[in-house]
């Protein structure tokens, strides 16, 4: 398994991450908010080179808004590889950006072997957007590493009731709702404090609200939180609030539920309050989460009700560890890969026929794009022959894991400075 992504500032080239995961940081141009410039054929030569070097069989793209993903799937299919796509977000159908992205998605997904969605609502949404057969869409939810979100009952301040919000501060995450509720809650309950993590365009609205109602000591805006620090912020809270207006699968609430624990006294459990939108109702069992409609009154009421709930001594971390594990996700994804490896490749004319059905004018344009892609591939095969490309050496995973394991099992007395460097 290798990862191909765009370069992040100075970070370009080939890197090896934890456990020997190889990442290719391709030097493409980034335009806005980590999105690459859509460069349809320009990505093909380097992509072909990577694929041949690593003997790749399956291309798996993520994210409907990622131009690298669409290009990689397109070129992968031209080269005869199997393709798979995972959709992580929900989209509407009515506004301009949705209409264009859905057409693009229809293009990419006309010729794909399998699609994975992160929730059942996301599956319905993707099937409608891309006009797919639902049998070709699997639902494999995301997961959390529960051991990274262990609860800590002592971290929260017992004098206050702390409400934690960690999200991107954008309209889509319901920041308007948050700006409306905070003054109300603070007025109703004098012992409530808010900690808001994350950054975005709506940060200014939150700061304005804080100024207007003089809540500087009650509302704390801690800015962008790096992922390894999220747990430290979560354990400081008694309630986790999620006000998003739409979510395919909300990992934030699963992480928050993991970091909660159920011992009395009254408020030392991290309860989760969320708006009931998108795929959120499918994610957590009823006893772990409190729902509210995306209305100002409803959310205030839900937070108010939490005070009078009876706390059940349950440990959510253990429950969620089994329900959502990456190992399970990997097993299910492997099943998908096995399924698509068994299918046969269709001839070019069949591919063109599939693209042609995308629309009256769009179908013809897409066919032209594919035809040109195919010609470009032949051209690359002639100019840069396959045999001239050096095959990369495989990272010795087994040897590395045995080495790591033996290092961890060694007694402390036998460790010396050389081993410490390797660790």
């Amino acid at each position, binding site marked *: 398994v290798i990862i191909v992504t765009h370069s992040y500032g100075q970070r370009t080239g080939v890197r090896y991450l934890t456990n020997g995961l190889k990442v290719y940081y391709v030097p493409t141009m980034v335009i806005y908010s980590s999105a690459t410039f859509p460069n349809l054929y320009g990505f093909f030569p380097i992509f072909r080179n990577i694929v041949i070097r690593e003997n790749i069989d399956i291309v798996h793209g993520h994210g409907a808004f990622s131009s690298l993903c669409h290009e990689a799937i397109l070129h992968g299919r031209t080269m005869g590889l199997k393709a798979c796509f995972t959709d992580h977000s929900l989209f509407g159908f009515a506004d301009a950006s949705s209409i264009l992205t859905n057409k693009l998605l229809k293009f990419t997904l006309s010729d794909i072997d399998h699609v994975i969605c992160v*929730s059942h609502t996301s599956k*319905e949404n993707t099937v409608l957007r891309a006009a797919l057969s639902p049998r070709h869409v699997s639902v494999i939810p995301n997961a959390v590493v529960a051991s990274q979100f262990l609860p800590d009952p002592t971290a929260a301040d017992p004098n206050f009731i702390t409400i934690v919000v960690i999200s991107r501060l954008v309209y889509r995450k319901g920041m308007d709702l948050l700006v409306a509720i905070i003054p109300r809650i603070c007025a109703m309950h004098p012992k409530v404090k808010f900690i808001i993590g994350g950054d975005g365009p709506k940060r200014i609205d939150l700061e304005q609200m804080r100024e207007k109602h003089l809540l500087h000591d009650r509302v704390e805006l801690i800015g962008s939180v790096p992922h390894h620090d999220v747990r430290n912020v979560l354990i400081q809270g008694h309630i986790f609030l999620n006000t998003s207006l*739409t979510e395919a699968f909300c990992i934030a609430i699963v992480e928050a539920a993991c970091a909660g624990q159920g011992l009395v006294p009254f408020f030392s459990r991290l309860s989760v309050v969320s708006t009931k939108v998108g795929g959120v109702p499918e994610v957590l069992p009823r006893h772990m989460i409190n729902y509210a409609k995306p209305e100002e009154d409803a959310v205030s009421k839900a937070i108010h009700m939490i005070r009078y709930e009876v706390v059940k001594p349950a440990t959510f971390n253990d429950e969620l560890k089994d329900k959502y594990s990456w190992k399970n996700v990997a097993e299910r994804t492997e099943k998908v890969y096995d399924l698509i490896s068994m299918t046969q490749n269709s001839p070019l004319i069949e591919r063109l026929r599939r693209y042609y059905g995308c629309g009256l004018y769009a179908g013809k344009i897409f066919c032209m794009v594919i035809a040109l892609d195919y010609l470009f591939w032949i051209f690359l095969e002639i100019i840069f022959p396959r045999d001239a490309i050096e095959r990369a050496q495989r990272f010795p995973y087994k040897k590395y894991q045995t080495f790591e394991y033996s290092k961890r099992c060694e007694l402390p007395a036998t460790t010396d400075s050389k081993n410490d460097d390797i660790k």
Partner: protein
Amino acid sequence: MNSKRMRLNASDGTKLPWRKLLYVKQDYPDNYVDDTFLDALQKNVNVRIYDYWTTVYESGVIAQHISSIVIFIAVFINLEQQKLATNSLIIAGTLMTSLGYIFWDYSVVQTVPSYASKRNKTAKGALFFFATLLGLSPILRTLTLKTSDDTIYALTACLFIVNMLSHDYSAGPRNIIKFPGSLSTNAAIFASVMLASRLQTNMGVFGLTAFAVEWFALFPIFRRHLQNTTQAGHTALSIIMLAASVTLFIHISKAVVFIYILGITFITFICPAWLIRIQKYKNEIHGPWDEAQPKLQPSREKYYKHR
């Protein structure tokens, strides 16, 4: 590991029904399609059913606006060719404006009684405005001396098109004028100033500009008010304006009249029928994936713009 995960198999081996949940391990494959798939999908819930004659009636707004532009151009051409005397234009304009204002004021006072106190301010404002215009008209007359006729006519044509396209055709009371509406009035006044500067006498310039202000800034308010109050008055006004534009323009150019009548028929009768016919292609999809509309208190809602 397996014992901890909830299994949804009954002890006798029959399958339990599929549930739309992610945290339980179900005995169905990942790509299983249940009968309840897409149950929450709602199609075409917000679609309005249009009635033909109501749409025809509503399209009268556009017809009136186009007629108003045509009448104005006819007035300008007549003024330039001196078929229409400046004094009669000024008198006619003032008379019509006063009548319209009295009618409008009378109906507005019935709904909003506090409006009576504003009459003095309005009269003073109007007097001041027209005095300034009279004083500025010699300057306006020499504004485009060096510019050629063709440039002026092309610019005027573009500006009137902008006026037509960006005009606020919606009905209902107006508290604030939003951006596209103000653009249309500005374009119209700009165009009339351009045209007025082609005239020969100061009084002519004053007459046309005053008429333009009354015609493009005040008359739409009156028309909108008429549309909101009487149905018969609205239709009558459309017909009167149509007749007026035809009579005024027929001596200038028959071809323009012909195109104009064709255009008005198209907009008034054919476009509503077309709109109703293509409603059958409407495919609106709603479901649980839609972005929720946050319901805030009304006092706060107007401060939060969508996105």
